[in-house]
């Protein structure tokens, strides 16, 4: 049909002279899709690298651990797990470097090999191999901080129990050294063969036995474990897999993935806002041309199709360019990030991500352009005779409802694709709708208010600028909505980022403790704190600790429960020494999951708080009675509530917490957390402590933190980088809204100039109009963003939320200045040229 080809020809011809104007429309798509493709591919790679990181933290594919030696009858079953395994026996013990130099509590880890995954960073490098080599003379590896503390060096010897070994290397970093619960002390590594000779592993001593396995790539560890689980449980053997470690690696990772989805979502929405506002203003500019086409006999459908083909074509080009840019950025990221990334990311071009990007880009161009384009069908040919007074394009259009419906579905499907969570999807959708409605309402309100309360007494420039806000052909609604929405999305991203980075930082560096002092007796507390103060170290936290043993659950004595193997209560829970603290509140790393905080009941029976996992594993429920023996004194308690603990925080964590008012007089010791600036300062404190308070042990968290910090640094970088990408899109949308709108004002400015207005007057009128629009849109957008970020904090990231006011005000100022600035720039352009030239070019 000649007609169809004519439509394409017209679309092409018309686009030649409009392309500069449509460049911003394309740029919105390019950046939106680039961010989407880049983030989705990079997100995939990051997720992979995180899972690799998890494996490195674990050092193996599977780790089995128990508090007693593995029973021989289990061996046939365990041998099925394969030959690639290392064994470890670990316990805490006093170690001594060179006689007379003092002793120190250390973690002793006796191993028959290194780690399967991750960096076991030793000095010299070869020391790790030599350690694992059973044919070489046995030697010990010792954590750097211990060697520094005792002024010992490689070649000196270390005594552990009855065994004295030469130190063959210092350990800088060990896979899996994370979490305060596992780091009881700096570590001395011994060959496993030496462990019996130490004489330290006897009945009654607290020893942990572990076996680490490596499997062929692709092995389904969960399935493998399933066949063994019952027997492992019966033998009280804990399992730790890459998957479980990945979960533990902290909410920071889950947050990061969620945040990246949010960034992609926002980038795309910004693109959509850009498309819609660009096309909206483009259509207004084209109304005269459409009227001519109609006058010459084109039908409404034909006129619409010409411009739809045009925008779809440019949208497709934009999507291709965007996908290419996204793929390129994604390919460049590992090179750019190099040292920042936790692992080497292998870059593979993600064709699904690119295909998704192309389809999304095209849909976004067509749908969001269609909305404003629809009005083209309604353009009356009468416009060729006079600028129509009656708003021919404003009549209600049933197709509009349809397009809006399709757009809603598009956004929801996309949000679901990013989050895989219907509740979140609907939440996002509702939030967006509310923001849009609020902004559109605000725009209307502004127009109405300015018109009604028009300050007739003000100066000419003000009156003219204000009147521009509501006169026919005004752009108040378009600009308030698009700039407001852009600011809203950007500010939300910014607030969320600040919130997450804030949390990651708490979990990682800066103010966090890196030295824990254990076993401080009540009468020593003042002395220890004075010592810290003298060394200019802060007391970050004091935690009282009372040790006790469990004697009965629901009045059934532990001795009876132990014999009853059918009840499923693990033996460790019945035999272990409980280290509990007492307070009335939960700290920032804890979250109430059921019941109440620790409280003292009205009946005098303490309602204790237990860790959620503990409650499940020990088969307890709220209201159960636990009887303890507190150093000889019996104490009855009731389980009043459960807590979840964020293990990524540097905080002492407790299975059981008592309320205040019960344990104050019980024998107890204090734990004090502090932070030292350097390894040397750390060693100095430790030496001073050993001299004055030999019973106090100082535990260095530096090693764990160094591993953690690595990850944290990279996460914050990625967050900033990706947010930067979206912010760029947002700024582009802002400027494109204003730049395109200039065509609305050009004729008037020229007219005013012809009528004798001075350049300065025109510039000031523009400043008033755009400055007001920008300020209003920015403030509204930010206000909405604060609401949205609060909702995200509470419902999605489960973080505390306190928006930083100053940066927000900065953003408001920036958006206002940008809007006004671009408006002025456009006027300058008009003012530079002669009125005639402008009229002819725009005619």
């Amino acid at each position: 049909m000649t007609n169809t080809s004519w439509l394409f020809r017209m679309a092409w011809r018309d686009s030649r002279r409009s392309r500069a104007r449509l460049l911003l429309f394309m740029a919105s798509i390019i950046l939106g899709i680039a961010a989407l493709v880049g983030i989705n591919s990079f997100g995939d790679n990051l997720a992979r690298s995180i899972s690799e990181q998890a494996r490195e933290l674990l050092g193996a594919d599977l780790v089995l651990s128990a508090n007693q030696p593995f029973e021989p009858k289990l061996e046939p079953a365990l041998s099925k797990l394969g030959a690639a395994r290392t064994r470890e026996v670990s316990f805490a013990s006093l170690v001594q470097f060179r006689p007379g130099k003092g002793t120190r509590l250390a973690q002793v880890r006796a191993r028959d090999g290194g780690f399967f995954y991750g960096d076991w960073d030793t000095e010299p490098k070869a020391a790790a191999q030599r350690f694992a080599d059973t044919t070489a003379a046995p030697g010990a590896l010792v954590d750097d901080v211990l060697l520094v503390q005792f002024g010992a060096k490689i070649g000196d010897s270390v005594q552990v129990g009855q065994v004295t070994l030469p130190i063959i290397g210092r350990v800088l970093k060990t896979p899996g050294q994370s979490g305060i619960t596992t780091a009881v002390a700096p570590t001395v590594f011994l060959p496993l063969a030496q462990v019996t000779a130490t004489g330290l592993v006897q009945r009654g001593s607290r020893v942990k036995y572990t076996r680490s396995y490596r499997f062929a790539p692709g092995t389904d560890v969960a399935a493998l474990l399933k066949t063994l689980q019952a027997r492992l449980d019966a033998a009280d053997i804990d399992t730790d897999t890459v998957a479980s470690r990945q979960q533990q690696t902290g909410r920071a990772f889950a947050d990061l993935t969620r945040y990246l989805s949010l960034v992609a979502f926002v980038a795309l929405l910004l693109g959509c806002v850009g498309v819609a506002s660009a096309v909206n203003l483009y259509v207004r500019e084209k109304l005269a041309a459409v009227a001519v086409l109609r006058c010459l006999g084109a039908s409404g459908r034909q006129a619409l199709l010409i411009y739809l083909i045009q925008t779809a074509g440019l949208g497709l080009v934009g999507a291709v360019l965007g996908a290419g840019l996204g793929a390129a950025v994604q390919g460049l990221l590992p090179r750019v990030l190099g040292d920042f990334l936790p692992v080497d990311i292998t870059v593979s071009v993600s064709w699904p991500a690119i295909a998704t990007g192309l389809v999304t880009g095209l849909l976004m161009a067509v749908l969001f352009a269609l909305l404003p384009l629809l009005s083209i069908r309604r353009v009356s040919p009468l416009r060729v005779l006079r600028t129509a007074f009656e708003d021919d394009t404003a009549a209600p259009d049933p197709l509009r409802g349809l397009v809006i419906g399709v757009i809603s579905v598009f956004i929801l499907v996309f949000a679901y694709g990013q989050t895989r969570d219907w509740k979140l999807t609907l939440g996002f959708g509702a939030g967006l709708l509310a923001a849009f409605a609020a902004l559109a309402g605000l725009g209307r309100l502004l127009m109405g208010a300015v018109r009604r309360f028009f300050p007739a007494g003000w100066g000419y420039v003000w009156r003219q600028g204000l009147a521009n806000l509501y006169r026919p052909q005004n752009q108040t609604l378009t600009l308030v909505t698009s700039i407001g929405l852009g600011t809203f999305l950007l500010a939300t991203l910014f607030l969320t980022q600040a919130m997450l980075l804030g949390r990651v930082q708490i979990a990682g560096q800066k103010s966090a403790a890196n030295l824990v002092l254990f076993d401080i007796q009540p009468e020593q507390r003042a002395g220890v704190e004075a010592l810290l103060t003298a060394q200019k170290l802060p007391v970050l936290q004091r935690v009282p600790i009372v040790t006790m043993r469990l004697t009965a659950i629901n009045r059934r004595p532990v001795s009876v429960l132990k014999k009853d193997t059918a009840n499923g209560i693990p033996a460790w829970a019945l035999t272990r020494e409980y280290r509990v603290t007492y307070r009335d509140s939960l700290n920032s790393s804890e979250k109430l999951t059921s019941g109440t905080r620790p409280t003292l009941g009205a009946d005098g029976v303490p309602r204790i708080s237990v860790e959620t996992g503990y409650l499940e594993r020990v088969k307890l429920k709220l209201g159960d009675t636990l009887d303890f023996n507190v150093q000889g004194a019996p104490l009855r308690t009731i389980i009043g509530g459960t807590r979840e603990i964020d293990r990524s925080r540097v905080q002492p964590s407790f299975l059981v917490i008592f309320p205040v008012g019960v344990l104050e007089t019980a024998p107890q010791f204090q734990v004090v957390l502090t932070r030292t600036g350097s390894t040397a300062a750390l060693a100095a404190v430790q030496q001073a402590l050993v001299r004055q308070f030999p019973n106090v042990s100082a535990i260095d968290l530096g090693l764990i933190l160094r591993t953690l910090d690595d990850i944290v640094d990279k996460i914050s970088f990625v967050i900033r980088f990706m947010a930067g990408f979206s912010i760029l899109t947002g700024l582009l949308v802002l400027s494109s809204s204003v730049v395109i709108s200039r065509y609305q004002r050009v004729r008037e400015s020229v007219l005013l100039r012809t009528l004798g207005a001075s350049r300065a007057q025109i510039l000031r009128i523009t400043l008033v109009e755009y400055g007001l629009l920008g300020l209003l849109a920015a403030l509204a957008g930010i206000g909405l963003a604060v609401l949205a970020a609060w909702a995200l904090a509470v419902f999605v990231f489960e973080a505390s939320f306190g928006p930083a006011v100053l940066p927000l005000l900065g953003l408001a100022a920036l958006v206002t200045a940008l809007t006004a600035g671009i408006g002025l720039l456009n006027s300058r352009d008009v003012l530079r040229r002669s009125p005639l030239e402008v009229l002819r070019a725009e005619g």
Partner: protein
Amino acid sequence: MRLYPILPSRMSILRVDNLTKTYASAGHALTVLHAVSFELAAGDTFAIVGPSGSGKTTLLGLCAGLDRATSGSVWLNNIQLDNLSEDERAAVRNQHVGFIFQNFQLLPTLTALENVLVPLELRGQRGAAKTALALLDRVGLADRAHHYPAQLSGGEQQRVSLARAFANRPAVLFADEPTGNLDPDTSERVVNLLFELNREAGTTLVLVTHDLELAAKTQRTLRLRGGKVVEPAVMAEKR
């Protein structure tokens, strides 16, 4: 040189019957045309004159099918326009009507040639490019075929719009103040060209103007004042 054969004369080509247009603006009805009637035969040249605001443009819009009358009817080339939909009227315009406007109304994003091509291509005519080039040549702008409107003077733009108006061999050509934006010398050239082309094509010309000198060049004149016909269209040949 004759581009089109003259249509058989004395055939009714435009008939306007009791045409009334009322706008409902700001609460009260404003009747801008009161029961206007006239009839034109093929090849007639016809001027609608009157002071500004007398309803000339309104009448032209109604005759050309750009707008709908409040009452009365319009027959264009034996097609009754009153009950056609907007798209049907668009088709009628494309087949039977040509336009010239005071402010030219060329599509700014198309070249001169492409502007002339629009009505031809719109109805899928073969050899459109050849016809369009011949027309541009006829108005003396063959060498400016690939220029955009912004690169042409007002007179040149109006000549391009003349070429475009005649491109689809319209039965009726409507011109609304065709010289309103032009200086006297350019005006004269454009007007002469308009009447020449009109004669060659045998098109019925409906010319709206407040310029009595220009109106004098047509065979018949309709005088409007306040939406009412002051001087009925007489069939007198004026020249």
